[in-house]
């Protein structure tokens, strides 16, 4: 590890405050408040701090650690407590992880809001949680040392016990109350790598058993006394308004309490409140609503692709302009590749349908949701109900997946739930979005058209590159719009504009049409389509140059593309045993990509079975900086890669016709099942002393181009239009 990591010095943390107090039930609360750089979105001064803590050392020996992010599969529920428990020398078997509620104290140190996204959980909270653990340990040691009248430096700690120089010992649980009264240590060194017991090791998840025996509760499972269930009939065309509906049949269904209209973030909708889900669903099916879509655009995929293709032939907002933008024109046609790529809208469809529960008594509100954006959602609920944010208690529930869908700048689901709770004054209500609501409800990965002209030099390398990308801006129209630069949304061009491949005359620009379809970041965001373009085109160039796909990439990478180089080298080593031996009818596809600070290289063995790609195996090499939990990283790579196959599925597209989404459920929008995923996958982590970077999104972009690169060898075709309906 680097010196910076060992000493805990970080440019992110300016000042830290430790507030320590005794809990009423005994024990030690440790709250760590962080000041953040002025460039953060939120106000520099933290608001009010509830008496929550990051660490609670309970008298019974249990250590409860608050996780400042949603757990939705990525493993942060285990990995962050690991960091803290390690520095604290806590008995890992006594650690309980809790998902922290919304509070300023739990903001992401870099981003300034409480959030999960951008694969930043470990990267941004790595030092924070280690510091917390180290300081807690220091205080416990100080308490013991004071009791024994020895110097703290003479003590050592292990598994929640402080040991003194003369065989004294005391459990953390015994020391906690006394330690709470001591001054907070200023500079606490973090452990040397050789002293780490958990960090860097393959540690199994804390939430496994409860997720295997039905006891884990998710947001959708919440049960409160007197709770009602609500469904909302959303407009079939985004932004349309209710014209009329028939409440009488709906109200006649036993168990239905109320039927009423509410404003939505886009348009209006009809709420059904009942005491059971099925009653609410039956009632909603009988509303016979009529909608007024006269004043909204009726988006149509076929028309949009037409429009996007036209736009792609004109220069857009410049993202990068290196060298001579007109160099491409001088290259003879025979040495030019002109390629058009098309990508559809994609839905996230996390396994657990969206839901939020709210209780509002007029003065205070309580919210339960598996949210990726807790403080944003908390503010939205407060605003909807006319409350100050501190009057909204926001509980973070375990979530069944997210992939970005639960991070909505407009908090539209929470706002719906709040409005319903307002009407039900005092009665808690669980708003459920059915799977149909989810598939048809928008907030998709935008559709894109790319048009590239690549001029190939005499050496077979790309000499000139002109790339136009057409796709909606995800940030425009949201509170994050200030991140647009001259109208350019970097999340549209990421993975292309910032490529690590060296091309002397390199020009990327983008158009951001404004379309009446709500869009959102889909796991890996811009990399999801840009990596496909880059890695298939580079592969095509390699084939054209009669070069090995790995060697060709290595020859093109910029000198400072260290992570991609280490990944490609490790990949080559790990596939050496099987790559030359694939049977006839099988091909090996290669792809590599770096995003969110992590490099990933991928090799897949593919054959064609029943006109579909069959992925026999995948080998992944990943450079995520220091690997906090190699087991989690392996899972994230395996899962993320298979998740990425969504883009290739024949029904992996959301399409609109005359304003309406054509798909309703997983029958029409079908993600990968076990047969669609690689049969086996070996993951290899590049040993690294760098700071940890993300693992949630980096595996997603590489798999689609790798598979398609293999298919191209088998069929001789190039695939530029997704989803892959035909091979």
């Amino acid at each position: 590890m680097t010196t910076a990591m060992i000493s805990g010095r970080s440019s992110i943390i300016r000042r830290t405050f430790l507030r320590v107090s005794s809990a009423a039930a005994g024990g030690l609360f440790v709250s760590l408040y962080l000041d953040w750089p002025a460039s953060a979105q939120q106000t520099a001064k933290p608001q009010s701090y509830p008496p929550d803590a990051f660490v609670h050392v309970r008298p019974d020996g249990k250590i409860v650690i608050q996780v400042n992010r949603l757990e939705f599969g990525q493993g942060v529920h285990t990995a962050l407590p690991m960091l803290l428990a390690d520095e604290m020398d806590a008995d890992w078997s006594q650690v309980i992880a809790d998902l922290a509620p919304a509070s300023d104290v739990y903001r992401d140190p870099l981003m300034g809001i409480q959030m999960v996204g951008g694969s930043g959980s470990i990267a941004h909270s790595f030092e924070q949680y280690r510091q917390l653990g180290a300081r807690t340990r220091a205080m416990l040691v100080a308490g013991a040392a004071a009791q024994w009248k020895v110097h703290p430096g003479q003590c050592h700690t292990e598994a929640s016990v402080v040991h003194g120089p003369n065989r004294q010992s005391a459990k953390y649980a015994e020391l906690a109350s006394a330690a709470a009264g001591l001054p907070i240590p200023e500079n606490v060194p973090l452990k040397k790598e050789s002293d780490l017991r958990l960090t860097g090791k393959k540690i199994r998840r804390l939430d496994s058993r409860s997720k295997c025996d039905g006891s884990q509760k998710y947001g959708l499972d919440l049960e409160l006394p007197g709770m009602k269930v609500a469904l909302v009939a959303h407009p079939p065309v985004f932004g349309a308004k209710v014209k009329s509906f028939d409440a009488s049949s709906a109200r006649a269904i036993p168990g239905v309490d109320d039927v009423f209209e509410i404003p939505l973030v886009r348009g209006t909708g009809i709420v059904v409140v009942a005491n059971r889900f099925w009653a609410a669903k039956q009632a909603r099916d009988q509303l016979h609503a009529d909608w007024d879509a006269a004043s909204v655009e009726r988006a149509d995929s076929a028309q949009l692709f037409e429009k996007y293709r036209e736009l792609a032939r004109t220069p857009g907002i410049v993202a990068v302009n290196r060298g001579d933008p007109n160099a491409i024109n001088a290259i003879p046609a025979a040495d030019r590749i002109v390629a058009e790529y098309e990508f559809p809208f994609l839905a996230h469809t996390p396994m657990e349908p969206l839901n939020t529960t709210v209780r509002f008594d007029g003065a205070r509100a309580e919210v339960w949701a598996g949210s990726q954006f807790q403080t944003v959602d908390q503010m939205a609920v407060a605003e909807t109900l006319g409350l100050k944010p501190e009057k909204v208690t926001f509980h973070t529930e375990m979530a069944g997946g997210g992939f970005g869908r639960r991070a909505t700048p407009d908090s539209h689901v929470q706002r719906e739930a709040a409005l319903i709770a307002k009407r039900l004054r005092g009665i808690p209500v669980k708003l459920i979005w059915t799977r149909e609501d989810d598939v048809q409800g928008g907030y998709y990965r935008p559709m894109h058209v790319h048009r590239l002209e690549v001029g190939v030099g005499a050496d077979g390398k790309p000499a000139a590159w002109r790339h136009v990308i057409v796709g909606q801006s995800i940030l425009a129209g949201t509170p994050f719009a200030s991140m647009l630069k001259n109208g350019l949304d970097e999340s549209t061009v990421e993975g292309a504009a910032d490529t690590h491949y060296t091309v002397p005359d390199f020009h990327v620009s983008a158009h951001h049409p404004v379309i009446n379809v709500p869009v959102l970041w889909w796991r890996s965001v811009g990399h999801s389509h840009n990596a496909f373009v880059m890695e298939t085109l580079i592969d095509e160039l390699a084939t054209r140059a009669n070069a090995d796909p790995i060697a060709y990439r290595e020859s093109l990478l910029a000198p400072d593309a260290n992570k991609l180089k280490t990944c490609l080298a490790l990949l080559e080593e790990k596939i050496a045993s099987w790559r030359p031996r694939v049977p006839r009818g099988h091909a090996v596809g290669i792809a590599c990509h770096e995003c969110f600070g992590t490099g990933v290289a991928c090799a897949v063995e593919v054959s064609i079975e029943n006109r579909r790609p069959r992925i026999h195996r995948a080998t992944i090499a990943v450079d995520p900086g220091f690997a906090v939990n190699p087991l989690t990283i392996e899972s994230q790579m395996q899962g993320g890669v298979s998740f990425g196959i969504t883009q290739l599925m024949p029904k992996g597209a959301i399409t609109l016709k005359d304003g309406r989404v054509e798909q309703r459920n997983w029958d029409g929008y079908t993600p990968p099942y076990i047969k669609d995923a690689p049969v086996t996958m070996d993951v290899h982590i590049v040993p690294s002393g760098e700071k940890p970077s993300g693992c949630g999104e980096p595996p997603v972009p590489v798999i689609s181009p790798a598979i398609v690169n293999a298919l191209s060898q088998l069929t001789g075709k190039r695939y530029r239009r997704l989803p892959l309906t035909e091979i």
Partner: protein
Amino acid sequence: MQTFKLIVNDEQKEVSADPRTPLLWVLREDLKMTGTKYGCGIASCGACTVHLGGVPTRSCVVPISLVGNRPIMTIEAISNDPVGRVVQDAWVSEDVVQCGYCQSGQIMSAVALLKAMPKPSDNDIEDSMGGNLCRCATYVRIRQAIKTAARQLG
């Protein structure tokens, strides 16, 4: 509304429900057993899988009126079953779960597979687990865990 007598995890239960209500929602809302999950409502994902009369069944599409006196076993009690316990332990030792929402259904399906085929081949595993969706795509580890469980049972 009608009264239905059910046998759930070896216990007698009585519920009052609209006969058309899917078993899934009776379990979750009337019996407060939320281990069985709602993923899609159209039997496309398997998150709602229970054992009904010993048959792995997608409870989101079976109206309560068609259940009859067939005993129901859910994820909450599968650890009482010797195969169930081994499967759960394998799931934990292989660190299968990510978000975990689909895993009740995956486990119920895997138990049904191993009860019928103690030594399933790769194709057997793929066929039987082929209709259980996992959006976190933990499929590679699901395969591994089933093989681990098969080894323990064999």
